[in-house]
């Protein structure tokens, strides 16, 4: 099936999410859509999948124009989609999830799941998915849930499969497995639309790359294009990929974590016996695939996990067991990983958000009484200092863009005297311009002599900021390595190897590669983490 998008435009009010986009997807081809967060990739795919009606333009299937009134229409012509956030019902079984919307029934509308089960087994066997049709989805690991999503599309005979940021939640190995699956689907004639903002994996899997910026197509390139070219196309200007930070000058070690453990509800520890320390004037970056204990680590340090055990000492004082409020008073600054949920109160004004965890301290309050004028003045100063783009400091913070919201959080946390600064995913969903600004502020805080801990799932960010790197896997610390450690080693550690094992394995792999000296892509193509850095 050949799929064409011609002049697709999608407006939301005055916002143009997609501007006159043309795209051709051929059978048996992996077509990558590359673009920053918010560039309009997902909107375009939602148009293609019938979730949005385009404001203008048309979709052609095998040369014939089609209109989709809903996902049902899109599925009917053979378009399947695996959403970034899986569209699975946790309390349903795999079979029920797959059947939903395309059910086999017996007389009287009674469900016949046996046929669905058979189809699932058939597909599962063919691609080696190893999925049990009767397992509850909520009990399955993320990688398997993704396969269930792919099965959903294949059961509906999808000839074009859209994968929206499919690797965001996968370990490097799971990513490799996914790429294998993509290769097999491709060999079977399925067209794949692969949406991502990660340059390396895009280069590894795609046959064609279309770059999107601010809702418009910037160009279509071969995967052999250089990473830096792709990056500048994506961002729209020459980006300095490195931060030019001065080497760290570590001082006293004031922050010490020992045997930190957070129990989970299923008997398994979400964070298991983690120990490390950070010196003043040093950035420790915590790397790992999402969901490997990073959230628990930061939350436990901040006192948000009542069942955490072990020891967390700041300047010799034990933080574990203290209330969140008291830990904040000890000078711990914290940027949570999801600002909209944990960092900001959307309906509160910028001014109120600027003092969200400092509202009852002087000069903002005296006793129970707050001082609105002081609060406002503080906010106006911070808005200017951090270049928050807003009409007024009294505007609700929800009216700001993601980057500006993140600046509000950072401004709040950095405007107190700190003894420890923790930032989790400090630049997630933030435009490139703001990323540079935020990174500079974080490094400035380090240079001011504060121990800094960064948690990120983006290796780019880790490499850019880290003086040392700690890698978490399955709640365990795989080791702490220097900031310039290679991606290969980090990838192996993120997959569950200790630092020593990873270094050994990497050394032998390099050796082997040198021996083979083939130089052809195939060997490295499936190994995203093995790709050369920019």
């Amino acid at each position, binding site marked *: 099936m050949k799929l064409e998008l011609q002049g697709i435009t999608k407006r939301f009010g005055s916002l143009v999410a997609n501007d006159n986009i043309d795209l051709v997807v051929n059978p048996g081809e992996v077509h990558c859509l590359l673009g920053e967060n918010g560039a309009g990739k997902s909107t375009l795919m939602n148009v293609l*999948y019938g*979730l*949005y009606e385009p404001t203008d333009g048309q979709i052609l299937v095998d040369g014939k124009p089609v209109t989709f009134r*809903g*996902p*049902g*229409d899109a*599925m009917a012509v053979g378009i399947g*989609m695996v*959403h970034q*956030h*899986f*569209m*699975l*019902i*946790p*309390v*349903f079984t795999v079979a*029920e*999830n797959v*059947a*939903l*919307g*395309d*059910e086999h*029934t017996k007389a*009287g*509308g*009674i*469900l016949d799941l046996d046929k669905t089960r058979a189809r699932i087994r058939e597909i599962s066997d063919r691609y080696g998915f190893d999925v049990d049709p009767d397992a509850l*989805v*909520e009990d399955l690991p*993320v990688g398997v*849930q993704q396969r269930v999503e792919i099965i*959903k599309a294949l059961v509906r005979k999808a000839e074009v499969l859209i994968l929206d940021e499919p690797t965001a*939640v996968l370990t490097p190995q799971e990513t490799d497995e996914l790429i294998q699956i993509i290769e097999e689907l491709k060999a079977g004639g399925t067209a794949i639309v692969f949406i991502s903002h990660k340059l390396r994996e895009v280069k590894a899997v795609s046959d064609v790359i279309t770059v999107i910026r601010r809702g418009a197509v910037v160009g279509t390139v071969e995967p052999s294009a250089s990473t830096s070219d792709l990056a500048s196309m994506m961002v729209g200007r020459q980006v300095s990929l490195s931060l030019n930070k001065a080497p760290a000058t570590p001082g006293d070690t004031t922050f010490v974590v020992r045997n930190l453990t*957070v*129990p*989970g*509800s299923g*008997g398994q520890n*979400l964070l298991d016996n983690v120990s490390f320390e950070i010196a003043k004037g040093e950035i420790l970056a915590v790397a790992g695939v*999402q*969901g490997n204990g990073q959230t628990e680590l930061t939350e436990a340090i901040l006192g948000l*996990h*009542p*069942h955490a055990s072990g020891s967390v000492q700041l300047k010799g004082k034990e933080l574990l067991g203290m209330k969140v409020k008291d830990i904040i008073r000890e000078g711990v600054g914290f940027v949570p990983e999801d600002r909209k949920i944990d960092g900001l109160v959307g309906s509160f004004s910028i001014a109120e958000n600027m003092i969200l965890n400092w509202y009852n301290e002087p000069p903002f309050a005296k006793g129970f009484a707050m001082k609105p004028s002081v609060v406002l003045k503080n906010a106006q100063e911070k808005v200017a200092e951090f270049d928050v783009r807003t009409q007024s400091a009294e505007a609700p913070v929800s009216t700001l863009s993601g980057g500006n919201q993140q600046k509000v959080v950072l401004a709040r946390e950095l405007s107190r005297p700190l003894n420890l600064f923790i930032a989790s995913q400090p630049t997630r969903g933030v435009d490139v311009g703001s990323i540079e600004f935020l990174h500079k502020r974080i490094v400035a805080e380090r240079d001011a002599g504060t121990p800094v801990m960064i948690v990120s799932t983006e290796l780019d960010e880790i490499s850019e900021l880290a003086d040392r790197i700690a890698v978490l896997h399955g709640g365990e610390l795989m080791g702490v390595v220097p900031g310039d450690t290679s991606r290969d080693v980090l990838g192996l550690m993120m997959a569950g190897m200790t630092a020593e094992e990873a270094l050994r394995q990497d050394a032998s792999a390099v050796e082997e590669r040198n021996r083979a000296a083939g130089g052809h892509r195939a060997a490295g193509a499936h190994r995203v983490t093995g790709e050369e850095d920019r």
Partner: protein
Amino acid sequence: MSIAATVTDPGVAGPSTRNWKAPIGFGVGALIALFVFAIGGPAATAVFRVSDDSDRFRLADIALPANVVGWVVAVALIAIAVYAFLQVRGGRGINRWAGIAYAVLFVVGFLTWVVGIADRPSISLAGLVAGSVTLAIPLIFGSLSGVLCERVGVVNIAIEGQLLSGAFAAAVAASVSGNAYVGLIAAAFAGVLVSLVLAIFSIKYLVNQIIVGVVLNVLVSGLTGFLASTLLSRDSATFNSPPGLPEVRIPLLADIPIIGPILFQQSIVGYFMYAAVIVIWIGLYRTKWGLRVRAVGEHPQAADTMGIKVNATRFWNVLLGGAVAGFGGAFFTLVSVSSFTRDMTAGQGYIALAALIFGRWNPIGAFFAALLFGFATNLRFVLSIIGTDVPSQFLAMLPYIVTILAVAGLVGRSRPPAAGGIPYVKE
């Protein structure tokens, strides 16, 4: 990342490794049994009459020595509590049959005790059970309405209003037409009308569902009250003297002791109730419709991406729920009493809501929960006849207290549909 989009309040019930609620609940209940049923057990013999003299088949009465039963029950309950404690301490789950056995034993112990302390310690078991079912009928219809709405993610606080509007419409339509069956149909329509407002405001205008529900109850109460004191009171012969629905007795089967009357000697509303429970259960858990309905209530976005029209599904289900509750409301004016009086549902809609939660959003669970509440209400009447010292107000409170314990998680864990109360808006 978990795909479960359930919202639990932060800081509430964090990731604790062991849940001690059940053992604590069991323990408290066992202590009550020990002190009240056993130590405070009367020396009397509690007699439960299984058959009446007029019955075709007669079975012997059950006579239980109250203090002996009290001790047996107390010891058994303590044993179950200890078992639960040990299971939880060992990090294991509690067998659900232990919970059921516990509940049955507790009820037996309580009944024996409460009958034993009465002036005339003898009650008709058949009458008690039959009365409970009768009282539970509107509750069950109300709960089923709640199940239908909440399963698609619309919280239905307006059950009370649906029942009341049904009762009103049934009375008026049956009176005017002179036909009780016309009343039944009108009742369902009235319920749909209330649901229509709920659906339009909560689905189209995205008004908070709880607010709409609460306000709708006030509106229906005001509207029916207003019409009752104008139209109905002015000409009650025309508007407010509905013909009743006859009891349909199935010969022989109705003669089976205890279960005969409750299953085979009912008004048509009663038979419909059984049918509705079964049909809705099968519908929800065994059909394509039910799969889609539950998907919409759990994860509307996922349902949408599979081509299911979320808001349309919600809309029709809410209307269907209204029809069911409205139909049940007809019970008040066509079966229970023979005219409409203002606010005659007297908060039963809220008890139905409680039964729905107690029954864990499951039609059969709601059925048994409603039966329990009907039982508590009926017991109050029965006990006042045989003369007991237990203040009737405390018995009246019982369903409400049990419900609070249930939602607090002391009686089992309940998990509402994940998307309940959240309007669905495509981004």
